[in-house]
């Protein structure tokens, strides 16, 4: 118990502290020196980056210089000034939306929320439908069907995204077929934000539905046969039986599945890499990755600020559930 608790504190509480601290700092500015270049045609002044001095400064204070909450309100994050400017001077709601979507943080937040809120219920619906259908199969067919159903969920998310991406590519089987159907050789699922969002959301449903399926399928095995039978004797049709017996029985399971799906969908990240979708759709996780993976040096402060904001988002998402768990466990405490 002690090593586990220690490891948990060390590796989960410490990084949260670490991102809080890092988010208050920002990278050092490069040290600039002005040198005079004198040649045959006179002297010119040139400003250069003093690489050695910059490196030394970075080594001395790896965190960077203190920036307070500056990173949080800059253009890359909450963009307070830009938002104020947009709100005070705009040409209607459409204009506001378009300009807010140009701010990187809000662009990522919008996609993350849209993805989470659409994929979660659609996954549950599809998973439930597949579970009902599998439950009606003869026993021998169930094993292979469950195996094939699980594949999208078990496969490595990045590789699953790549496999689908190669198919919907303009040269891939689905992409080329769509071009043929719509008779439009320039049609590409990556062309517009709308199509990219739809592609990513469909991929998300495909990837996560098997999880909802498995849990609902297990739940279906526990639906009391007597209740179903009495509902039938009382004249309930198939749909009424599903609606009034099966669904209420599975409600606690649905809450569990919904919670897990919310958490998993909120960190959507790999498909954006796999589909090379960053031009049209970014997510909070992707923004952090992008800051840390930057070509011109890693932006720790910026990544940390986004991380803190993401963590706050997770907390908001989980609060209702945590309160529920707390109350439920308090009642059941043994």
């Amino acid at each position: 118990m002690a090593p586990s608790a220690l490891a948990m504190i060390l590796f989960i509480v410490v990084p949260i502290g670490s991102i809080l601290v890092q988010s208050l700092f920002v990278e050092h500015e490069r040290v600039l020196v002005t040198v005079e270049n004198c040649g045959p045609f006179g002297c010119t002044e040139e400003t250069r980056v003093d690489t050695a001095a910059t490196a030394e400064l970075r080594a001395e204070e790896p965190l960077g210089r203190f920036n307070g909450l500056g990173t949080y309100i800059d253009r890359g994050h909450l963009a307070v000034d830009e938002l104020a400017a947009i709100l005070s001077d705009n040409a209607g709601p459409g204009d506001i939306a378009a300009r807010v979507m140009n701010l990187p943080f809000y662009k990522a937040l919008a996609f993350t929320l849209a993805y989470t809120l659409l994929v979660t219920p659609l996954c549950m619906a599809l998973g439930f439908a597949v579970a009902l259908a599998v439950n009606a199969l003869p026993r021998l067919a169930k094993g292979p069907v469950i195996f094939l159903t699980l594949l999208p969920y078990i496969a490595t998310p990045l590789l699953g995204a790549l496999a689908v991406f190669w198919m919907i590519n303009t040269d891939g089987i689905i992409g080329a077929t769509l071009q043929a159907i719509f008779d439009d050789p320039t049609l590409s699922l990556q062309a517009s934000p709308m199509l990219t969002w739809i592609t990513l959301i469909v991929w998300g449903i495909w990837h996560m539905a098997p999880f909802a399926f498995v849990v609902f399928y297990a739940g279906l095995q526990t639906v009391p046969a007597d209740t179903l039978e009495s509902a039938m004797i009382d004249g309930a049709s198939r749909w009424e039986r599903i609606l009034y017996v099966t669904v209420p029985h599975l409600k606690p399971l649905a809450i569990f599945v919904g919670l897990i799906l919310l958490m998993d969908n909120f960190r959507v990240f790999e498909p954006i890499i796999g589909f090379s979708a960053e031009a049209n759709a970014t997510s909070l996780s992707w923004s952090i990755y992008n800051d840390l993976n930057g070509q011109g040096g890693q932006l720790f402060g910026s990544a940390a600020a986004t991380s803190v904001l993401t963590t706050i988002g997770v907390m908001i998402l989980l609060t209702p559930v945590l309160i529920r768990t707390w109350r439920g466990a308090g009642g059941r405490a043994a």
Partner: protein
Amino acid sequence: MSATPPHLRPSMTASALAIGFLAVWLLVAAFPFFWTLWGSFKVEADFFSRSSWWNAITGPATERQTGSAFTLAGYEGAWIEREFWRAALNTVIVTVSVTTVSLLFGTLGGYALSRSTRNYTVWILIAALVFRAMPHITLVSGYLLPFFELNVWGVLPTAIVVLVAINQPFTLWMLHSFFLSIPKDIDESAMVDGCTRFQAFRLAVIPVMWPGVITTGLFSFLLAYNDFAVTAMLLNQENQTMVPKINSFLGTVQTQGSIMYAVAATVSATVPLFILVMFFQRRIVAGLTAGAVKG
């Protein structure tokens, strides 16, 4: 479930509808993987054919370029030329270590928790929930700078430790509930017979805990195997595991045919996973539902 009584069986039309729906779903679910598997034995001109997708099935360009309808060129390029075997080896090291260490801490911790008289359950549950909800990349962004400063960035043990830590709350939660289902009488009677607490654990509990341990181990394995965020950010080029390596195939090279390396590598990384699922399907299904059934 035992056989459904005849009068509860669905009617013919409903069955036909259900089977039709299921057929469509199975096609959607499994087709991309089989398509990629088939295509990995073709050349780029066929798998990404501009003229017709039928080329990917028959492979005329593959036949022209290599003399046969199937080619191992993608696999050769990935495994030998681009040294994918190194990434595969790293993946083996990482996944085996993560699974072993997770289970070691998890069984001891989970056992202690389940036998403790105090009520830790709520805290474990809440901790597991919160930490499961944190996107891994936010944790990684917290680790990165300290790891640079400590000079431990880029090596396999660092990634292993981080993956174990991320996995630990979930492992504890699962094993804790498995241990709760093993009656206390078993180890108590062993202790009455003169065993110490640890001997009771070793001699009486370990022999009956394997189903739970295997299931939990499978999930630790899957987490380590499927991870991209942690391994991509914390490992340097030589130590990359398979998933970030495949991503780097896509990023750097644009030369003819190298995309087929990525296709072949994707298949190479996915096939072992699916074989594993085939063998352990029951355990995985049990594990996915374990948390749910308890509510």
